[in-house]
């Protein structure tokens, strides 16, 4: 249920992101989802890829500051109110979200990637409410 996400520190420097995507492409690593948090000086790339360990290794070799972060993915119907329903469950159980991003796959399904301090508790309460969670095997080969 826990998804291993790569977090990469990026200076705001022209071409730096392109360099990173090039390294992933050269190593045949697919990107399933990503988001970038940016400030004036730097950005943090959060990316879910196939082969996270390989991705971590090749990026570190090329001098990137990389960290594996555990996140969860909630799979929802792609319709109004679905995200609200999922978040309401987390809020009702006192689980706060550090950050999140979402992607839609196909016409009727969407996935919200959520980073929280208490991922196990989040998984439990979401399962209790019969929410579908993204499986590690869905995004990368273990």
């Amino acid at each position, binding site marked *: 249920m826990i998804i291993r996400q790569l*977090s990469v*520190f*990026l*200076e705001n420097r022209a071409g730096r992101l392109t360099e990173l995507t090039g390294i992933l492409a050269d190593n045949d690593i697919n990107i399933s989802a990503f988001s970038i*948090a940016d*400030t004036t*000086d*730097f950005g*943090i790339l*959060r990316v879910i890829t196939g082969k996270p360990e390989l991705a971590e290794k090749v990026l*570190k070799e090329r*001098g*990137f*500051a*990389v*960290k594996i*972060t555990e996140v969860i993915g909630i799979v929802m119907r792609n319709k109004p109110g679905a995200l609200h329903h999922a978040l309401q469950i987390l809020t009702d159980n006192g689980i706060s979200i*550090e*950050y999140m991003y979402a992607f839609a796959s196909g016409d009727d399904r969407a996935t919200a990637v959520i*980073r929280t301090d208490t991922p196990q508790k989040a998984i439990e309460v979401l399962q209790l409410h019969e929410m579908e969670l993204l499986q590690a095997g869905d995004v990368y080969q273990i």
Partner: protein
Amino acid sequence: MIWNEYHECMDRQRLTELQGERLRDMVERIYFNVPFYRNKLQEMGIEPGDIRSIEDLKKLPFTTKQDLRDNYPFGLFAVPQHDVVRLHASSGTTGKSTVVGYTHNDILMWSEVVARSLTMAGVTRDDIIQVAYGYGLFTGGLGLHYGAEKVGASVIPISGGNTKKQLQLLEDFGSTAIACTPSYAAYLGEAIAEEKLDRSKIKLKAGIFGAEPWTEEMRTQIEQLLGLKAFDIYGLSEVIGPGVSMECGFQHGMHVFEDHFIPEIIDPETCEVLPYGTLGELVFTTVTKEAMPLLRYRTRDLTRLHVETCDCGRTLVRMEKCVGRSDDMLIIRGVNVFPSQVESVLLEMSETKPHYLLVVDRENNLDTLEIQVEVEEQFFSDEVKELEGLRKRISGNLTSLLGLHASVRLVEPGTIERSQGKAQRVVDKRKLK
């Protein structure tokens, strides 16, 4: 105008005799009152009686900033604490300040040399002087203040910063002289232009600028912006503060007040004394100071001395503007900064490694300091608030140690150049040379 014609225009033969007498007296005082110097002199087999004239100065040991640090805070004082009436301090290289003390007589002597300096800039009792150097542990504000009062000028102790108030008082009080760092003077000048102040209300005629390096181009710029004549003043707290040397109206270098501070130029490598006119490291012996007399203090400033009598009639040697340092000290907005201070802050913080780069620049005539620090894997967080928090913590620690705002920029690991041997820690983009 010459404040103290007797000492400033003294026959050089008579001056060296006076220096010799004062040096003899000083060596005796430190031998009997400062264990640090007594030990040093005994190790070298020197007794007070061996020092008879200024010729013997070269036999005496040097004093370095490290010696001041090793004897922090009062170890080099030559008088009991009850005779010390003032303490000043500048930021040290590794967290501890460099402390200097003054007796009542030292304050009188300091006021005297600053009065001589202000007189060189044409300041008299008829002037209103705005002292815009910082007041506090820094010697700039209070040093100029006491000297200006001695001259009899009306002193406005406004201290540094607060530009709007500075401009208002320039207009309302009709200040005729101002003392501050040259970069702040240029900044004030631009503020006058921006605020479209009525130039006819600005009565400034003289500016006394120092505490940081500046160029002839800056002088021209400041003179145009503020409509005054700009004078260069030199000093360092270890010797006394501002007023160690000062430019006269002919501006052929800064006259060193040699009856109090004996200058030498040495080769920073071999410590050999160099002749007049040769570039080397400036060294001072403070022959009259009571609280903390220093023997051959190495300033690390590189300059030349000229002994020919000046057109103004003063016989005191003139020192050129300093052309650099024989160590890695930077002067940023008048504050002394050593790269090692930054390193000590980073080493104290468990989250950082001491890979850093200081980038000094000058924007709108004000020096800026940016410190680039590498983000190391072990403290890299993927949450913006954590990294921002870390950045602010580093910046806060640096600002409080340096006494100067330092902005911090986090950079990727391995991007700061590692070099064999002495690392390149500083990029100074200010064009001062």
